[in-house]
């Protein structure tokens, strides 16, 4: 699946998006898997309460299932307007 990062999450992880092959069942599982992988992920995901997640371009929660999902995006709270 395509995993995207925005704003300071993108800056900490160092790429705007990447293809990830995972068996993670939920968003939280994916976060744990990436955090275990490298320090830059652990740093970006250190406090998930400071993050938001979208699955297939819809805002959702970290317990959302990943079955059949094409795109997951992580970012800080939005500051539009």
């Amino acid at each position, binding site marked *: 699946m395509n995993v995207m990062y*925005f*704003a300071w999450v*993108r800056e900490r992880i160092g790429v705007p998006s990447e293809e990830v092959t995972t068996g993670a069942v939920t968003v939280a599982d994916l976060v744990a898997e990436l955090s275990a992988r490298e320090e830059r992920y652990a740093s970006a995901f250190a406090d998930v309460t400071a993050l938001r997640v979208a699955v297939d371009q819809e805002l959702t929660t970290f317990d959302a299932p990943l079955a059949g999902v094409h795109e997951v995006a992580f970012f800080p*709270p939005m*500051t*539009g307007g």
Partner: protein
Amino acid sequence: MAVVVQAESFDAGAELNAFSDGAGVGAVVSFTGVVRDTDGTLAVMEIEHYPGMTERAIAGIVDDAMARWALMDALVIHRHGTLLAGDPIMMVATKSAHRADAFAAADFLMDYLKSRAPFWKKETTADGSAWVDAKEADEDALARW
């Protein structure tokens, strides 16, 4: 309904005039957001967004507004990219037979765009760059609706 996400600037007055026509329209409300330079030190504001989701999220918010209030139409323009102090960032306009609907819908659209449309602002001053933090008050504002 028109939703425009673009890097280019826009002319708020021209957009307002183009939007205001229509049989039965009695009230038009507009909001323009401008890059604010509180203490005269802002060099640039960069706005990052999530192409695809941005348009979809804004369209969803506008649909909600059209369902909740008696609107004849609504317009949202939001820029991304590099902006300078005084530049227009975004604009919302609503039109209705009556002022209460036009005001409430524009206010609602702004509250939701602020916290639910995938834009992130970064400010660069002489002291360096920093992402703008979301304000708790902006999240709390959603409870009004």
